[in-house]
């Protein structure tokens, strides 16, 4: 597990402390630090909606039952700017989902990491690392 590096020197620590990431809402209010999860799921729907995108997965339990999960992701504008579109990821794709469950205990979570079957993390580094290349091959 890669850990956040300790930043020291040059006042970098204070610079970052003074410039927090102002997200749309406080994730820690919505999701539970004490409910981390890691499971495999099959993408059934991808909502490219504001202010955050939501990924829907079917998750198979040990007893063979299937549960539906919703996973929160980045804003559509941010994704589109990186060349990601609604068609980038095919429905039916299986992936490993790592995150934290909603505090109300329902099957919702924040997707800390979405990892494809071959080990690549989703959208990492932009277009070059996407599971599918654009139609024009670029």
């Amino acid at each position, binding site marked *: 597990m890669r850990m956040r590096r300790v930043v020291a020197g040059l006042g970098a620590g204070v*610079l970052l402390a003074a410039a927090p990431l102002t997200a749309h809402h406080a994730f820690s209010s919505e*999701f*539970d630090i004490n409910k981390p999860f890691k499971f495999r799921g099959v993408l059934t729907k991808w909502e490219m909606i504001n202010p*955050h995108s939501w990924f829907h997965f079917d998750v198979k339990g040990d007893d063979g039952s299937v549960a539906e999960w919703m996973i929160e992701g*980045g804003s559509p*504008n941010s994704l589109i700017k*990186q060349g990601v579109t609604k068609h980038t990821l095919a429905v039916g794709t299986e992936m490993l989902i790592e995150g934290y469950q909603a505090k109300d205990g329902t099957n919702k979570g924040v997707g800390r990491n979405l990892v494809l079957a071959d080990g690549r993390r989703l959208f990492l*580094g*932009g277009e070059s690392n996407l599971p599918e290349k654009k139609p024009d091959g670029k």
Partner: protein
Amino acid sequence: MNHRLLVLGGFFAVLATVPWLSTRTVLGQARSGSVKTGGAPATAYAVPRTPDGQPDLQGFWTNATYTPLERPKGVTKELYTREEVLELMKRAATEEAEQTVPGTVADVHYDFSQFGLDRSQGVMALNLRTSLIVDPPDGRLPPLSAEGQRRAAERAAARKSRGGPHDAVQNEPLGARCILMDRNGPPMLGGAYNNTYQIMQVPGYVMILAEMLHDVRIIPLDGRPHLPENVRQWTGSYRGHWEGQTLVVETRNLTDKFAFQGASEKMRLTERFTRVDAETIRYQFTVDDPATWTRPWSAEVPWRKDSGPIFEHACHEGNYGLYNTLAGARAEEKRAAEDAAKKKSRQ
């Protein structure tokens, strides 16, 4: 490792596209012997004109930055060296792109690079300033006036009487409720994402579309009076005029609910947009609110040329987060009540 290399590769690609600002800023300041740019005349750059003769500010711009509004404590100088700021930006980009420690509050979030939220993946102007605030010279907000202190206490008491931040939807921050975010302002300040703006000009008007909340300011230039005092708006009453090559926008009639940095509704805002080269707009603003601060204060942010188009950001479209946050708070209360009941029954 692959991850980090990709991110840093993107970071340097961005910097490679913005050599001007870094070198020009340093040289310009060295020549003038002053680092104060508030109100300074535009550079020798000949700003192109629109067909009706306005200086042309049109296009897509971003105010994405890692520079904080206030100078960090412990930093005493106004400017970093180019080497220092490059190192700071590299570290900030690395920090943003790396995984946080599992089991910490910061980790309850998605990965920034994975979801396009890492600022170093996009265009960003290089800013040597240690703070966006340029006046007062210490780079920090001036002290509160007596009235400002009294109102801050009153607001805190009022907030307390309404209950916790998640007790009612009205207690949630304006951003979580999709009403207004710091990228909209006014003044318009960068944040973690959706930092793009589009400026369009027609005879008599300048229009600024903010990517965040898809909010638009249509600024009249014809010298019409401000709205009547009793008409208060989230983004105020704003009127523009040209001073040479600088667009000056004056805003008043804000609402008490907005309270930018704790300001009163009497706050007057003056924004100045100057295109200093083909790739950069110098955005300056001055906040004047004696009902809050002992003196006016000013800040400066470079806006860097970006690419479009801007996609719609219909913030309420799928704002499940607001529901989830409130539902989470209710679940926690229930759990706490159950724990308390169990404890009591054991006694």
